[in-house]
């Protein structure tokens, strides 16, 4: 596993820029679940003039933004237990129906955070496996295996400079072979049968520099899809 000193950091985009980049890749009409934490930011960048329907696994399709403080409704919350609103066209349902919707492959996209993603698309995002930690999984495993496209939103490197893209996850798995694409602050990676392919490198990053950062053999998505090199 490659490590990288912060002083040598390559060009990185901010978390907000990354959220905007993910939002731009979601077509109108998509049914989308945004995981707890950073992925929630993506909602702020979905264009107002496009209809994208947000799902929250606790039982709502058509989730809207947070309410004004005096309009907080304790009965109307998202999976992160934050107050939300419901848009015209929303629908409520119970937990078995909600997770059936996920497990049955009806969501177009879900965006999740990650501790690690392996070259085969394995995801680790629910437990660091630290001894004594209290485990909690929530809907992570259901989301990981359920959506048609599972996007991971994460920094490429941990705070200590280790790559979150790995050959094999060392943290406990959330799902096997489930990740479609990884959006990081350095680049966007597709998970392909031959491992990670760089779909888009931000700023000065190159396939070569990303290979060095991650310690992985990376391919160029454009080359992989036969569109050039």
């Amino acid at each position: 596993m490659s490590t990288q000193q912060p002083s040598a950091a390559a060009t990185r985009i901010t978390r907000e820029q990354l959220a905007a980049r993910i939002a731009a890749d979601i077509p109108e009409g998509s049914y989308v679940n945004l995981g707890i934490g950073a992925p929630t930011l993506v909602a702020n960048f979905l264009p107002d003039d496009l209809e994208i329907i947000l799902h929250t696994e606790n039982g709502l399709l058509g989730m809207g933004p947070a309410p004004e403080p005096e309009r907080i409704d304790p009965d109307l919350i998202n999976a992160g237990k934050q107050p939300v609103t419901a848009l015209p066209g929303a629908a409520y349902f119970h937990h078995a129906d909600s997770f059936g919707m996920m497990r049955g492959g009806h969501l177009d996209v879900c965006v999740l955070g990650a501790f690690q993603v392996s070259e085969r698309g394995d995801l680790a995002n629910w437990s660091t496996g630290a001894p004594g930690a209290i485990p909690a999984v929530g809907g992570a495993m259901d989301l990981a295996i359920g959506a048609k496209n599972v996007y991971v939103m994460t920094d490429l490197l941990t705070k200590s400079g280790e790559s979150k893209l790995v050959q094999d996850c060392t943290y406990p798995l959330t799902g096997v072979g489930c990740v479609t694409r990884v959006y990081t602050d350095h680049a966007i990676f597709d998970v392909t049968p031959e491992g990670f392919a760089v779909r888009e490198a931000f700023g000065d990053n190159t396939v070569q520099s990303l290979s060095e950062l991650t310690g992985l053999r990376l391919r160029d998505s454009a080359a992989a899809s036969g569109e050039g090199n």
Partner: protein
Amino acid sequence: MIDKTVASVDEAVAGIQDGSTVMIGGFGRAGQPVELIDALIAQGATDLTVVNNNAGNGDTGLAALLAKKRVRKILCSFPRQHDSWVFDELYRAGEIELELVPQGNLAERIRAAGAGVGAFFSPTGVGTQLAEGKEERVIDGRTYVLEYPIKADVALISARQADRWGNLVYRETARNFGPIMASAAATTIVQVDQIVPLGSLEPENVVTPGIFVDRVVAVGERAWLRGGEFVGGVDIEGRPLARPDAAATAEVDQ
């Protein structure tokens, strides 16, 4: 005449036995039947196995039941929260057993119990620690793990309105586990804001038919509604906003 309504929460929880498996509705605080849990605490049943999505918030409701050491084991998907200090301490002290279940498997296992399904193959959790030791099978090229129903002796849930036959409607995402838990317990006990006359609930809109419900008790309207209409003015825990004198009583207010 069928009348499933009872006059008090104490009457509602009467007869719950030590050692029972008790499903408790709610996702975090939304839909948590706090008044029924308080009555269960007063009733005294202990050595309970509790099924809930979480493991209590703050010091009220499910957390208070845990704090009284009435719960031997909890099945849930997400015990660790910013305000789950009661559970955290019991767990670290080895005073409560935890069965961690992915949320969708938890929901589907509860539904399976209610729907008479003996077991089912789920794609959730395959290849993870939470599927270790479980039977696997490849069906149509995809790997599944076999999951079994979760039944209960008692379910305690919260709904918005009921009639005397026990038909229920819920409110927004507070619906969450209510309908499936109602179907999976031998005795289902429901707290509602309001009991309405038979025939008031539109048959198209009943979410839980009364066949799944045994006892219903009215506990009064939630603080953020008035006459069934949302009026707001509370925080996410249901405590009044911007009323300094209300802070002292906020902990018991939901």
